[in-house]
């Protein structure tokens, strides 16, 4: 069965690419089968992005610019839909029509690094004027056939298709799970394109998220997620995908169920943690509640509901995609042997609201150099700088903060401020090897964010800045009068700006 399909695909590709060549020479002779590809050429553009991020361990240092290509889907409103990671830290974006090879610079109109989607707009409005935007397909269900549309470097279309085997949650980016279509079959060609549109018939069904050649599966950003994104983008300001702000676990164990008195007939999930100030918190949800219904759906003991199209589907899909930010979701909970309904007004948790931000993209990582000590905010991007094996090679005392950031009860810090390194000058002798120190206080002032440094530094103790850190040596001293000289050396000898921000220190 598998083998036959492979042959068919290959045959199709050969036929199609042959036809494209013919089509170039004589348009009028195009057979019926060709029309579809010609149409699709009108609905997609090649996207080239040059991006340049920062080195998080040396936040003044930019990486080498890198160039990536993708196939974007033209959507209504003269815009192009691509994956967000394509345009992360972009410096320059260029669109190119596939058939006429016209080029035009573009800008990012909306980007969402959680849902991994971005809308690009050409700087010249007329550029996409006579193109045929792709309408959004109806949501798919298992068994549907989808076509991934690739373009060879010479402009020929290379469609490859597969069948949806399952529809389930998949990580769109680190820590962000949304519904994805999973296709069987390996992707035949990629031409290094980061975004590949996925069609159902003549309509846009999704964008490729990732392909796993060993498992022969392709994950696709699903139609409902794209629909949510486009709807939000059409009504500025863009608000993003909502969250309710609680952690949960299964309510399967009969001993747990008996302990909390949950009737056998009732199913639901156990609320482990409600984040302070989150929609769930404001609605009155508490740790220890069992959520039995959400909206009109019965919640299973593992946190799923029955979706008419996809079957058993995670609540995460319900919360994050079925609703927009600002919508109210009724939550029925079992608490103290009674049920009650809470109404949560869903909100968005932006990366800045995390104690350890999940990403820092499209801006320079903030830092302050004070007397050679480099102060930075701990972020997941900083930890990821330790390489593919960062989860093991990054310092465990820093991983700890990332891993447990929602659970550090009693720790009121907004951010974790670290001294990432010391820039050697004649004044820093003896401090050179200090790195990755977690800062607790400066001059007796608790430090919970980078901007706290400013006020703290106005208040030296006995003529010295006293910096307390959690690791050896425990205390570091700076002489306020020496700092200007140290900064002069760093700026002249290393040519490193002493601060990422405009605010002088």
């Amino acid at each position, binding site marked *: 069965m598998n083998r036959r399909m492979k042959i068919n695909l290959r045959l199709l590709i050969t036929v199609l690419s042959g036809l494209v060549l013919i089509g170039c020479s004589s348009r009028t002779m195009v057979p019926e089968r060709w029309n579809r590809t010609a149409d699709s050429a009108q609905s997609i553009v090649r996207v080239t992005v040059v991006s340049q991020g920062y080195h998080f361990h040396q936040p003044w240092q930019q990486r080498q610019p890198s160039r990536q290509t993708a196939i974007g889907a033209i959507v209504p409103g003269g815009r192009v839909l691509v994956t967000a990671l394509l345009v992360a830290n972009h410096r320059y974006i260029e669109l190119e029509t596939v058939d006429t090879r016209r080029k035009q610079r573009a800008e990012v109109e909306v980007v969402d690094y959680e849902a991994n989607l971005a809308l690009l707009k050409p700087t010249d409005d007329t550029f996409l004027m006579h193109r045929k935007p792709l309408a959004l397909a109806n949501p798919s269900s298992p068994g549907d056939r989808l076509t991934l549309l690739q373009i060879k470097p010479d402009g020929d279309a290379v469609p490859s298709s597969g069948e949806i085997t399952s529809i389930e949650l998949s990580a769109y980016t680190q820590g962000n799970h949304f519904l994805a279509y999973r296709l069987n079959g390996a992707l035949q060609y990629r031409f290094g394109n980061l975004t590949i549109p996925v069609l159902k018939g003549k309509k846009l069904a999704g964008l490729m998220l990732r392909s796993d050649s060993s498992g022969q599966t392709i994950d696709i950003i699903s139609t409902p997620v794209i629909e949510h994104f486009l709807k939000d983008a059409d009504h500025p300001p863009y608000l993003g995908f909502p969250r309710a702000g609680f952690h949960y676990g299964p309510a399967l164990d009969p001993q747990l169920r*008996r*302990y909390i008195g949950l009737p056998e007939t009732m199913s639901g999930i156990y609320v*482990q943690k409600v984040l302070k100030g989150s929609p769930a918190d404001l609605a009155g949800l508490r740790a220890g509640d069992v959520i039995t219904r959400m909206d009109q759906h019965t919640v299973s003991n593992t946190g799923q509901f029955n979706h008419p199209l996809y079957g058993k589907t995670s609540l995460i899909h319900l919360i994050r995609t079925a609703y927009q930010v600002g919508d109210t979701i009724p939550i029925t909970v079992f608490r103290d042997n009674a049920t009650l309904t809470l109404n949560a007004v869903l909100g968005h948790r932006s990366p800045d609201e995390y104690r350890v931000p999940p990403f820092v993209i499209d801006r320079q990582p903030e830092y302050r150099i004070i007397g050679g000590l480099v102060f930075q905010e701990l972020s997941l991007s900083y930890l990821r700088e330790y390489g593919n094996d960062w989860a093991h090679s990054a310092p465990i005392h820093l*991983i700890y903060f990332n891993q447990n950031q929602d659970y550090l009860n009693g720790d009121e810090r907004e951010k974790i401020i670290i001294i990432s390194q010391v820039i050697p000058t004649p*004044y820093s002798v*003896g401090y050179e090897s200090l790195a990755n120190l977690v800062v607790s206080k400066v001059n007796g002032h608790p430090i919970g964010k980078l901007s706290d440094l400013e006020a703290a530094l106005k208040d030296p103790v006995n003529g010295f800045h006293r910096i307390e850190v959690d690791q050896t040596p*425990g205390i570091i001293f700076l*002489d306020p009068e020496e700092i200007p000289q140290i900064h002069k050396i760093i700026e002249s000898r290393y040519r490193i700006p002493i601060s990422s921000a405009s605010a002088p220190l």
Partner: protein
Amino acid sequence: MQKPPFRYKAWVALFTVVLAGMLFPWDVQAGENIKAIQRSVVRIFTVAQNPDYRTPWDPGESGSGVGSGFIIDGNRILTNAHMASNARFIAVEKEGDARRYEAKVKFIAHDCDLAMLEIQDPAFFKTTAALHLGGVPSLDSIVTVLGYPIGGDRLSVTRGVVSRIDYQVYSHSGVDSHLAIQIDAAINPGNSGGPVIQDGVVVGVAFQGFSGMVAQNVGYMIPVPVLTRFLQDVKDGHYDRYVDAGIQFFPLINPTHRRALGLAPGDFGVMVSDVMQAGAAFGQVHVGDVLLAIDGRPISSDGRVNMDEDRLMLNEVVERKFKGDTVGLSILRQGKKIDASITLSTPWPYLTQARQYDVKPRYVIYGGLVFQPLSSSFYGSLSEKTDTLRYYYSQFLGKELYLKHPEVVVISKVLPDPINTYQGRFVNTIVDQINGSTIKTLEDVAAAFKKPSDFYVVRVVGDPQPLVLEASAVSKAQQRILARYKIDADAYLGDSIVPAEWLAKHETDQATPDLTMEK
């Protein structure tokens, strides 16, 4: 950046090395009187049974090994601790005697890989001779290694020179470093515990080396200063381990740092950067104190003292001492000079980081859940180490996690049974509370499950979903589970690392912000 706690075992030895080198400038001759020496060298056959921390109730797999040893005065046999660890049977043979004599461990020092054996049968010593201990051989001088390494059954002799005199981690415990002497004579498996001879006297005990895959001709011996300290320590009939002040210091090289602490420019004084609460100096020395002198010897800004016409690390002063000895510290605190006298001890939390021997793994089984303390041997047996376990293990000393959980109790395993079929998600989590009481030791776990209650609510670190055990359900299942997995006892609570005095003294400790549930 994380440094091991303040343990500078080896510097004592360096001092001794230097001194000995001056006192006994031997003329090194080629060739030893092997005929005479071989009467002092013995072949040791051991059967050890090493517990498997993954199945702590099982006796463990046994295996046999052959090594070497030598006889010193008083009919004492010296060998490596790793030859006698977890031993169930030890037999000793000597040249020219067909008999095997059973030996018993008299003293064993796992922190310096030395052991003393005794043989009941006086007939054994009829034809033997005792070896004398020498000093520290000089670099490039020739040494002879005797022992019973692989390659044959009879005594083997190899020769080489002293290549390096330096500190090494003693791999037997995995955490202790002392002086060790590197030699290029072949040292192979089976040489362990054998004497290294120069001019007819012992200058070391062969004990570890690299495999041929890593380095060639690199073998190590335990030098005489470490041997002598061991012999001195056991004189009272008990081995007490190395002792420590329980402080860490930071060199005062930075001129600004010096001025801020009220020190004049120059090269004296170090700053205390950490004082372990379970350490000897706690309460007497504070973070930020400047140490000016130790036992009257001025401390330079890189932490060295002048001793025996050399500059040695200040810890060397402590390294030479024994349990209960005191060390004097001159401290500068906020501009005032203070003298402190510290009574030295072994900081017990540090023992959780050392490989353990001659103990049985501690565990409690309840409802098919296996509870085990986070020790070095247990940690090493884990195939997957979660971030939380890595944090608790690696920061146990540095973050003083032992204050709240002197023994970190891990749910290590679920022995599958219908009552725990949904509890697999709690494997490798750390127990924080049971029924509202903080769990400080494994004994607390056992006690909590003995207190009558309908439900036992176990709170684990970092996952606020409770693990609920229903007493009536467990009591029905407990025997069935133990029988199914052929486990004789539902707990072993002996061999605790945490001293009872510590627990008594710290009953009411409260910890700093952590991953516990919200109140």
